[in-house]
């Protein structure tokens, strides 16, 4: 409904904290705008570029300046193949600085990455 103002999103592949994975996301809503529920595709590969299948993905987010989370609880609902996971239920309800933390667990090992978004 609304064009995001001053959009500057960090979404290129980013190394996870312990450098186990390279993670990127693609929003199904372009540009990301507030008050619209939508899906993301999260892509996970190993640091040498091989797609990661069979991972458990969790995603949480919030606005550090306002001390509140996303208005929704997005869930990874489907593995799409080639390291891509469908995450449904993404929604932002304010413009401003958001942080999205994506955690990946494969075979008992976990790592996570945090993306900054300016909406």
């Amino acid at each position, binding site marked *: 409904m*609304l064009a995001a103002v001053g959009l500057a999103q960090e979404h290129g592949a980013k190394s996870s904290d312990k450098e186990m994975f390279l993670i990127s996301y693609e929003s199904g809503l372009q540009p990301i705008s507030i*008050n619209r529920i939508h899906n993301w595709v999260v892509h996970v590969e190993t640091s040498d570029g091989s797609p990661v299948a069979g991972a458990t993905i969790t995603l949480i987010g919030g606005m550090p300046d306002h001390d509140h989370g996303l208005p929704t609880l997005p869930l990874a609902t489907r593995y799409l193949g080639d390291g891509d996971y469908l995450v449904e239920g993404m929604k932002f309800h304010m413009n401003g600085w958001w942080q999205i933390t994506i955690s990946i667990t494969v075979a008992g090992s976990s790592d996570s990455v945090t993306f900054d978004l300016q909406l």
Partner: protein
Amino acid sequence: MQFPRKIGAILAITILLVGAALWFMRPPAPGAWTEAEIELLRSLWIGSLPPVPADPGNAVADDARAARLGQRLFFDTRLSANGEVACATCHQPERLFTDGLDVAQGIARGERHTMSIVGAAYSPWMFWDGRKDSLWSQALGPLENPIEHGGNRKQYAEILAADEQYRTEYEAVFGALGGMTDHEPAITQVFVNMGKAIAAYERLLIPADSRFDRYVQALLADDERQFDSILSDDEAAGLRLFIGDAQCINCHNGPLFTNNEFHNTAVLPARGKLPSMGRVAAVRETRADPFNCLGRFSDDPDANCAELRFARTGDDLIGAHKTPSLRNVALTAPYMHAGQMNSLVEIIEQYDRAPLALVGHNEANPLNLSRNERKQLEAFLHTLSSPLATSPEWLAAPTAVR
């Protein structure tokens, strides 16, 4: 002679520097907006309001015959335990579908302030805590709430079946009413259809443009002479605060001035009442509601229902209540979920101080606005008044109600 000349030079430079500093620090001219600000103004403008979103769960959502039936139901006081309470008892068209009371007064005094239903069709969540996920499902709640309408679905179905006009209008939209009155599933289906007709009516209640909107329209059309005359300097300064330092736009965003989500801003409970837990207590209720988006009474079994499926609860939603629209805010006092505040001045002071919350935590931070800035903000809020964009024939009881 050297000394005074030096002083003169120093004085001149000082005056120049102070002058330059004042020039750079001067408040922007009321009508001077940056590109980013203009985009924010456009996002709030009524011209950015899209068509009412589809409601696949309600097959008659955009059926004019259903809306006419819904209008009749909306104003009918027979749909209550004592024959005196209609939807319009609290949602009064002449008060922009509010009632001017702190809390609703139906069969008994309620707990919640009556929200306006103008523009409600744009919200994924209804009620202050969002416990209903569609307009049609919302309409069913008060009808059977003992302190609101206080009746029951069997009584209402019997009224429809016995009233020739209702029966004709109902059957034209939903098919045969039958002689159902003791058959529970049929009674509930009639009840659900009543909600869907009322929702079809409520979807027509949309705000028209306000002085603020005419200002933005002129600004977007680059009509400087016109837009400068639409808002006073104080109103324009208040608007600048609204989208800037006062941070109101964080939650009051979009053309209806609401994100339709839930926030704790440390509003005190009504006198003598315990704090409301708000959103945190409502999500479970919606999931268990037979009239929710995933339930069998939805007309779209394949509906995505993403808002419901991915609804969240959590500590940051303790004491959180829905952001109300600010359109017509100056005409629809009192305010907040239990009508705790009577004036815009009180509200602005609340957000300026941002006190600690009694339950949960206050998301807002202190603003430290000056007295003048608070007045400017209040002046701006008065520019959001407007009539409805809805044709007047919808704004009163239909003439043939008996």
